[in-house]
């Protein structure tokens, strides 16, 4: 080849590469965006989500942003949760528990509602929908808790519960999605639900313009029961796995609304976008093997406590989340029904104490914990790696495995390959948190039980809303004492939006802004 020139070639490459990279990169970090930002278009709203749902069937939906966005657009819930957290009529006009004990629930449906596939809203149809939901949904247990569904009129039903559920109305809002009624016509032929929509929502999926897993295009539903509520002609939802890429797309006027993280917040603000934040997630390490089945050390309370003492929550939070999170030692967001300010100082960072506790438990030389992590929420894998380095410091080796898909992640936990995991859970009332995190199931695969905890859960479920908080605070304290978890922060949700896009509001009770409430202002 070209021996004579190679020497110079190499030097040239090195210099060009360095200059190009340096120019491009440093220029970016110091500079602000070039030129003004485009204003929000009044016709079209473009939303970026990080991962697509596998199916458009609302019965197969997950909860929370960004997973629920697509269903919010196409399916009207029985009950709307408004941005301020209050409830408003959706497909149901009236609802409520009958009597005491949170067990019997009546629903009255709206008259004259048709679905986009031509089906009509009837009590029978809603019952069929609930039955379908109960048979296929990952959250099927919510409906399996229905003792019976009685059609009491063409547009009225009565639901009788097996166990009390104080949050049944909330469950039927778009935020938990169990009330996203599917057309009875489509229920006859459920295969179509994966790639098309059959709701009674404000928008309908344009299948021709939609590329599954990539771009979903919705157009306004001409037959919607409340045409005035519709603010957009078109809503496009684009899948952009990387939030940094999504922010780039916002800068190039391809996206109007996205979910970010602390990593983008500052840059987004500098670029002139609106950044809205609200405490949203509580992050924790779940020490799953509390019985010491796989890793005996975890069966020792002192060890679990040591692991709590080993984490410097303050620097972890400021390093990873900056201003967009605050250290926390509880399973709830501040202000929620079981949150107790006084519990915040239980496990102050104290590695020496942690080591002492380990030594006391007979693990002075440490042990190994397999940990699973998956980036369902921003930063979860980063936290896992950070926790690992703290635990390393007290002699506990943490083998972090980052799953490539949520399925792999689930397998790892269900198969007990991982005995701990990092998770960031959305702010919810403690009833829902307890039934998910404390009861046997995916979040408690080893079926850990504690008589006191179980008793408090049951007590809370049946209590009325005035008595519940006190019971839940007690539960919180008990869980913390037993150190089933190592909570570390309450984390802000960061949504980034284009100037001129209005209606983005988050409150502690309503943390997933529903795009149907957005508008382009004037």
């Amino acid at each position, binding site marked *: 080849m070209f021996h004579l020139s190679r020497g110079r070639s190499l030097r040239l490459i090195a210099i060009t590469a360095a200059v190009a990279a340096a120019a491009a990169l440093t220029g970016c970090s110091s500079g602000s965006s070039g030129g003004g930002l485009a204003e929000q278009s009044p016709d079209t709203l473009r939303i970026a989500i990080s991962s697509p749902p596998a199916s458009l069937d609302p019965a197969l939906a997950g909860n929370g942003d960004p997973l629920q966005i697509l269903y919010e657009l196409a399916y009207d819930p029985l009950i709307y949760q408004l941005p301020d957290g209050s409830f408003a009529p959706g497909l149901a006009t009236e609802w409520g528990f009958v009597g005491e004990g949170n067990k019997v629930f009546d629903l009255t449906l709206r008259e004259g509602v048709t679905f986009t596939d031509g089906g009509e809203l009837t009590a029978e149809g809603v019952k069929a929908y609930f039955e379908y939901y109960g048979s296929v949904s990952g959250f099927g247990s919510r409906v399996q808790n229905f003792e019976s569904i009685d059609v009491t009129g063409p547009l009225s039903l009565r639901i009788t519960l097996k166990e009390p559920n104080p949050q049944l109305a909330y469950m039927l809002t778009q935020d938990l999605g169990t009330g996203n009624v599917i057309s009875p016509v489509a229920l006859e032929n459920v295969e179509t639900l994966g*790639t098309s929509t059959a709701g009674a929502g404000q928008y309908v999926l344009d299948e021709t313009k939609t590329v599954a897993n990539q771009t979903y295009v919705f157009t306004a539903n001409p037959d919607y029961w409340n045409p005035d509520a519709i603010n957009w002609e078109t809503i496009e939802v684009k899948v952009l796995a990387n939030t940094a*890429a999504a922010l780039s797309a916002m*800068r190039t006027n391809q996206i109007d609304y996205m979910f970010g993280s602390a990593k983008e917040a500052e840059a987004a603000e500098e670029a002139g976008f609106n950044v809205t934040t609200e405490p949203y997630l509580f992050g924790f390490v779940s020490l799953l093997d509390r019985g010491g089945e796989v890793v005996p050390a975890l069966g020792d309370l002192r060890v679990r406590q040591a692991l709590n003492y080993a984490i410097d929550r303050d620097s972890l939070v400021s390093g990873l989340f900056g201003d967009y999170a605050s250290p926390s030692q509880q399973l709830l967001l501040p202000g929620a029904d079981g949150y107790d300010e006084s519990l915040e100082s239980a496990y102050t960072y104290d590695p020496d104490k942690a080591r002492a506790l380990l030594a006391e438990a007979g693990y002075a030389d440490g042990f190994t914990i397999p940990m699973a992590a998956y980036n369902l929420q921003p930063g979860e894998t980063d936290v896992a790696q950070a926790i690992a380095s703290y635990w390393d410091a007290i002699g506990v080796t943490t083998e972090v495995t980052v799953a490539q898909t949520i399925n792999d992640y689930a397998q790892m936990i269900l198969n007990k390959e991982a005995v701990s995991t990092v998770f960031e859970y959305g702010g919810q009332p403690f009833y829902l948190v307890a039934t998910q995190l404390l009861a046997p199931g995916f979040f408690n695969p080893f079926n850990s039980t504690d008589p006191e905890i179980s008793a408090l859960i049951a007590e809370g479920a049946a209590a009325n809303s005035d008595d519940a908080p006190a019971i839940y605070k007690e539960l919180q304290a008990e869980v913390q004492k037993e150190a089933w978890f190592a909570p570390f922060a309450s984390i802000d949700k960061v949504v980034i939006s284009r100037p001129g896009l209005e209606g983005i509001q988050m409150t502690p009770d309503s943390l997933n802004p529903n795009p149907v409430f957005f508008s382009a202002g004037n």
Partner: protein
Amino acid sequence: MLILILKRVLISIPLLFVVSVLVFVLQSFIPGDAAQQIAGPQASPEMVEKLREALGLNLPVWEQYARWLGEVLHGSLGTSLLNGQPVIDALNQRLPTTLSLVIGSTVIATIVGVVLGVISSRGKGAAARFIDVLSIAGLAVPGFWLALLLITVFSVQLGIFPATGYVAFADSPSEWLRSLALPVAALSLTGVTAIAKQTREAMLDVQASDFIRNLRANGIPESAIVFRHALRSSAVRIVTISGLLFIGALGGSVVIEQVFGLPGLGTLAVSATTSKDLPMIQGIAVYFTLIVIVVNLATDIAYGWINPKVRTS
């Protein structure tokens, strides 16, 4: 020539068969299946088992394959296990994106590469050195890294090109071009350098050949020598490399599509494999193989067009 093409086409049928069997066999070893994926992490084992039966995933591999083959004979590639979309629809929806990207990058690589190659074959040291540097850089700079750099500079900094997304040609030809500019640039760097280097070497080889010397000695003008005779002789090698580049770009598109969020076959390939959506994987494999077959065929036809020896034999 026609016989050659027919032969190629006939050979490709068993090829498709082999590839589809290979994919089926490979996937049968993959632990877990789509049923688990669809049911979600919180589903009970009974629920998953029910789904598995519904999807036919409980059948032995050969039976699943026979079913699939049956579908193929009816002109279908089955439906996605995840959302029930017909595989052919999903693929056809994404094919234009991937083809735009891959054809675009091959064409750009060939044009730019040939121009650079010809210039450097004519020039003295500096031009040759430039190609040298470029060719190592083309190998050394990973496409996805270049893509990030391009986004930083041209989208975020200068705002000239969109950072992500694809606009169909039918919707807006100019936006189509703009949406492809950066991905094509990122994907074609390797190709540009490979073609430039090959072109230069081929041109130099040809220029050293007897017939070029004779043309020059008998007064044929330099422009005719370079563009008519030397370039055409070099074209055989250029076409070969272009064909290989096309196939290489097909693989490279997977990462590039991911970086730019393009709705192409590559992103589908990644999501289908991670979610074990077998009919989809199978369909992508078939499409990719078909594309490779078509490219090879096109290469052969190009050979024949360039070289009379191939045409007449």
